């Protein structure tokens, strides 16, 4: 087992454990902190795949901005494990069975797929570098890029309109 494989398994185990902890934590603040660990491990996977730009953007946008927004809202509402709404036990069991059944179906469908002998390049390859991504983004994807800026503007206006007291 070389270093890449070791890092892959380590990051995968940490990611899955943290994702489970996001779901089972009673306190919403702990859920947010576990989710930040998941985002860090996914950024680690991006670095392993040499998608350096996406790794940094994932850290800045998700672990930085979005999770701070979540924490801010949770602390604004003063949520903790005492105010956590409890679901019926049978509904919880049904939810876990539903998720597990989806897992089973997807694994069973894909375990013999044609694609399983393909390899994903790790550590080398320069399509993930900001130079190449920037050239592709501003040559072939200028229109979607500008449309996304309009989307951001409308999201900002929408958040202010929804959030203001009537």
């Amino acid at each position: 087992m070389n270093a890449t494989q070791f890092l892959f398994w380590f990051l995968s185990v940490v990611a899955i454990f943290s994702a489970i902890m996001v779901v089972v934590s009673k306190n919403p603040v702990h859920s947010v902190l576990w989710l930040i660990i998941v985002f860090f491990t996914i950024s680690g996977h991006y670095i392993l795949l040499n998608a350096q730009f996406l790794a940094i953007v994932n850290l800045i946008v998700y672990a930085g901005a979005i999770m701070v927004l979540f924490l801010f809202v949770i602390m604004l509402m003063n949520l903790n494990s005492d105010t956590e709404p409890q679901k019926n036990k049978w509904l919880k069991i049904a939810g876990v069975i539903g998720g597990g059944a989806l897992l089973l179906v997807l694994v069973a469908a894909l375990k013999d797929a044609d694609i399983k002998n393909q390899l994903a390049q790790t550590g080398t390859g320069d399509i993930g570098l900001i130079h190449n991504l920037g050239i592709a983004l501003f040559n072939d994807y200028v229109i979607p890029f500008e449309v996304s800026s309009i989307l951001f503007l409308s999201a900002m206006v929408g958040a202010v309109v929804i959030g203001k007291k009537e």
Partner: protein
Amino acid sequence: MKIKITPAIRAETKRESMPVNYYIFLAIALFCIGVAGVLTRRNAIIIFMCIELMLNAVNLLLVAFSKMHHLALKATNPNAGIEGQLFVFFIMVVAAAEVSVGLAIIAMMYRNTHSVDVNFLNRLKH
């Protein structure tokens, strides 16, 4: 289109690659944990966080497939597979916009009902 990898290419790249089905199963596991979280929790913010988890599982899979495509086609096209990473970039953009609006809606719901329990929203039925 079928991507062919000859044994020679495989031997050359064996050291610097992972089988893509490991990434598929990792992404499936994260996605299904997100689905189970949406189904089992009643706190609107946790449900929202589980949706973010599912989005990230899909992003990881897109990047892995982009690198797989690049490895197979880099001889003919040095930029093969770059579209996958740009898609991930746009998914992150849309997710950021979605979170800002969604959290505003949750904050408004909390102001009206003093709870983040999604079951309070069942009066939308009537």
